[in-house]
């Protein structure tokens, strides 16, 4: 019984899913909301397709989609979605720097949502570009362009050259 599978894995999976959101968003209340959305979406997916296999990696996959949805919603609210559709690739110079972990995390939090999500999936989650593209529902080319712009925005914000827009 697949519902029972989800409940059976719940105790083990809950801290992993919550830990994922807490480290990516930094706010416990938001992490709780996204955790709840993830498990309820998993229950919904199981109801629709009882043959799905419930596993922790599968749940993290659902969690990533919820993270993307969350930042996409924020993006729409901030009216910066137009930037995601831009396929032009600006010039990216080599940046020789050793990133300070705390300052880097702080910088990420100040980025526009569409930049933050791209860098989170590519670098914090260490996903290949193709996987990031699938999660963002973009072409690989558009995703690579987005990553270049995101890295440049990060660099400007890290170095202190102004806000990301």
């Amino acid at each position, binding site marked *: 019984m697949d*519902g029972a599978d*989800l*409940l059976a894995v*719940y105790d083990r999976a*809950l*801290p*992993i899913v*919550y*830990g*994922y959101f*807490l*480290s990516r968003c930094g706010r*416990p209340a938001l*992490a*709780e909301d996204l*955790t*709840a*959305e993830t*498990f*309820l979406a998993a*229950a*919904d997916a*199981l*109801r629709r397709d009882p043959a799905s296999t419930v596993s922790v990696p599968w749940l*993290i996959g659902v969690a990533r989609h919820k993270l993307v949805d969350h930042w996409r919603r924020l993006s729409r609210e901030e009216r910066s979605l137009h930037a995601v559709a831009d396929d032009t690739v600006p010039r990216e110079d*080599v*940046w*020789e*720097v*050793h*990133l300070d*972990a705390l300052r*880097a995390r702080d910088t*990420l939090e100040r980025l526009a949502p569409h930049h933050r999500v791209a*860098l989170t999936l*590519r*670098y*914090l989650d*260490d996903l290949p570009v193709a996987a990031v593209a699938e999660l963002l529902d973009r072409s690989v080319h558009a995703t690579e362009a987005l990553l270049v712009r995101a*890295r440049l925005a*990060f660099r400007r914000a890290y170095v202190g050259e102004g806000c990301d827009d």
Partner: protein
Amino acid sequence: MTDPFAALRRPVAPMDPDPAFAVTLRARLQQALDPRGASMTVAPDVPAAGSGGGPRHGDLAYVSLWVPDVERARRFFGSVVGWRYDPTGRQIEGLSLHHGFWGSERSTLFLCIGVDDLRAAVERVRAAGGTAEEPHEEPYGLVSGCADDQDMQFALYALDPVGWPRPAANGAVQGDLSYVTVETVDAARFRRFFGAVAGWRFSPGRAEDGWGVDGIVPMTGIHGGHPRTTVVPMYRVDDITAAVARVRAAGGTSTDPEPQPYGVTADCTDDQGTRFYLGMLG
């Protein structure tokens, strides 16, 4: 040259959320996964019982297994029927009907009956010769602790407009309560009292002075002629032969499985003398 961004990599570290959040989410998941709820809304904040129908007046709203040593009973029933417990250890998780534990000298199953109008039901208890506390708020709802006119303790519960889904008559999953047997002193007196108080209607059962309560869930029957009142639960199991072996291995006693018209049952006691049945039902 190493990509400076590679230093951002952060593998996921598990973090325990607030325990109250964990318990609440688990309960929401159980509701969401309820097969009877397949047509219900997916919105997490909408209570599930609207379209499926909640418990009805006269149904059991809650039961509690009264045992001398709760911890011992948790271990015993955990191993025999697979019960899992909430963090406080007082509630059994994953069952179709709220089921708790309570410490008491004598083992019995304590019944809490759901009623539409608690105030009126309290008056009816008193008018019928029983005793009833003034309704008071418990974490789970408005309750009145009562005793009938043969000194059986029970409780009344104000049914929420939106409560939990009405359980199946004989439970659904292993560990669910599938039948309740009230062994009482005077069955006729019992029928008069609970007929008046809870609206229970009775049909003759197969045994001499045995009666079934019509239409309530879980299915309940009463039997007269006993020296004192004891309520004996029957719990569903998937494999009764294996369950009987587990009862004996855990220090309880059990009859061998006995075929019945409705399934296979065994008559058991736990390792504290708590009587219960196991039922492998259709």
